[in-house]
C-alpha cells in the first residue's frame, strides 16, 4: 500500500509526465476544452429555450420530463451513440463522438433548472413590473433572469460536473483528455498511471463543483429559490 502510493507520487514527480502530447498540462487542457465546448453548446440551446418556456409557461411537461429522460441515458451509451453519429457524419474518432455524447448530457439539467427557476419567480412581482409598463423582454431580462439566476447556475453546475465526469469516457473512443491515463493504465496494467489519472479527474470534478458554487453563493438572492423567501 505504502509502496504503491509512493509509486504514484513518483509518477507525478517524473518530469516526462508534464510535457508533450501525453503530458498532464496537455491532457488537462483537452479535458477542459472539451467540457467547456459541450457546456457552452448545451447552454446556448437550453438557456434561451428554458427562459422562453418559463416566461410563457408553456411546455412545462416537456421541460420537466426531459430531465428524467436524461438521467436514464447511461453515459457509456451516450458515448456509443455519439460514436455512431460521428462515424455516420464522417467526423471520425476522438473529439467529435465525445462532444456528441456530452451535449445531450448537459442539456436536461440546464433546461429543467432554467424553466423551474423562471416559473418560481413570484407572479406578483411580474404583475407589478407589467403594471410599471415594462415590456415582456424587459421583464424577462430585468426581473425574471436576476431572480432566477441562482437556480440557473445550479443547473449549469450539475451539467458541468456531469460533463467533466463523462468526458473521461471519451478516451474509449480514442479521445484525449484525462481519461487517457485511466484507459491506458487499465489496458497496460500500469496502476500508478491509472491511479494518477483517476486522482486528476476527481480533483477536476470537485474543482468544477466548487467553481460554480462561488458565483451562486455570491449572487444576491442565493439560496432563495422559493418565491416566499424573496
Amino acid at each position, binding site marked *: 500500500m505504502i509502496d504503491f502510493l509512493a509509486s504514484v507520487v513518483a509518477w507525478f514527480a517524473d518530469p516526462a509526465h508534464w510535457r508533450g502530447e501525453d503530458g498532464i498540462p496537455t491532457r488537462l487542457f483537452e479535458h477542459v476544452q472539451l467540457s467547456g465546448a459541450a457546456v457552452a453548446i448545451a447552454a446556448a440551446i437550453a438557456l434561451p429555450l428554458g427562459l422562453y418556456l418559463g416566461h410563457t409557461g408553456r411546455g412545462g411537461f416537456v421541460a420537466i420530463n426531459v430531465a428524467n429522460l436524461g438521467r436514464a441515458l*447511461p453515459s457509456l*451509451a451516450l*458515448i*456509443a451513440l455519439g460514436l455512431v453519429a460521428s462515424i455516420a457524419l464522417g467526423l471520425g474518432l476522438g473529439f467529435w463522438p465525445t462532444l456528441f455524447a456530452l451535449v445531450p448530457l448537459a442539456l436536461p439539467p440546464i433546461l429543467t433548472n432554467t424553466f423551474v427557476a423562471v416559473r418560481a419567480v413570484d407572479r406578483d412581482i411580474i404583475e407589478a413590473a407589467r403594471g410599471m409598463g415594462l415590456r415582456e423582454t424587459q421583464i424577462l431580462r430585468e426581473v425574471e433572469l436576476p431572480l432566477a439566476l441562482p437556480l440557473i447556475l445550479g443547473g449549469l453546475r450539475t451539467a458541468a460536473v456531469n460533463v467533466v465526469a463523462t468526458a473521461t469516457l471519451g478516451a474509449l*473512443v480514442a479521445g484525449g483528455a484525462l481519461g487517457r491515463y485511466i484507459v491506458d493504465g487499465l489496458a497496460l496494467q500500469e496502476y500508478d498511471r491509472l*491511479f494518477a489519472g483517476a*486522482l486528476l479527474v476527481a480533483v477536476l*470534478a470537485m474543482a468544477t463543483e466548487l467553481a460554480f458554487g462561488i458565483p451562486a453563493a455570491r449572487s444576491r438572492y442565493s439560496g432563495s429559490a422559493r418565491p416566499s423567501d424573496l
Partner: protein
Amino acid sequence: MTPGEPLVRWDWIASHLDEIVLRLGEHLLLTGLAVLVGFAIAFALAMAALRWPRTYAAATWATGILYTIPSLALFALLIPFTGLTLLTAEIGLVGYTLLILLRNIVGGIRSVPPEATDAAAGMGYTAAQTLWRVQLPLALPVIIAGVRVATITTIGLVTVTALIGQGGLGYFILLGIQRFFSTPLLVGAVLSVALAVAADALLVLAQRALTPWARPRP
C-alpha cells in the same frame, strides 16, 4: 459503422439472444445488489442522523464527495487495492447511491407532520413504534422517490463496470466500440435505457401499491 454495413444486423441479435439474456441478468444483479446494500447503509446513516443531528452534515459531506467523483475515476482509484473484481464494482456503485438515498430518507422522515407523531405519542407509542408505524409509512413516497433516482443512476453506471470485467450490458457497448460494429453497441445502449425506464415504472407501481392513501381520489 463500416461502410456498406447496416446499422443493425438482426441476424447477429438473433444468434446472440442467449448472451443478451445473460448480460441483462448480470446487469440486473449488479444493480439490485448495489441498491440493496446502498439502502441498508443509507438507512443506518439516516437513523444516526435523526438521533444525533450533527452526524447528518458529516454524512452528507462525505457521501457528497463520493457522488462528485466520476464513476470511471472512482473505479480506477479502487482497482490498485481491490483489483478487477465484483467488490470494486460494488463499492463504487453502492457509494453513488448513498447521497440520494440518505437525503431522501432523512428528508422524508423530517417532513412527517408533527401532529402525526404527537398523536402517536399520545396513543402511547414508543419511539420505535412511532418510527415503524407512523413516520416511515408517511415518508415512503419521498423514500421511494430516492430509490427511483438511485436505481436509474445505478443502471447507467453498471454499463461502465464492463470496463473492469464485470459484464452487464456495457459489455456489448465496449464490444461495439472495439470492433467498430454498431449492432452490439446499439443493443447495449437501447437495452440499458429500456431497463432504466422499466425499473422506474415498476417502482412507481410499487409505491402506489404501498401507499394507497396517497392516491388521488376519483
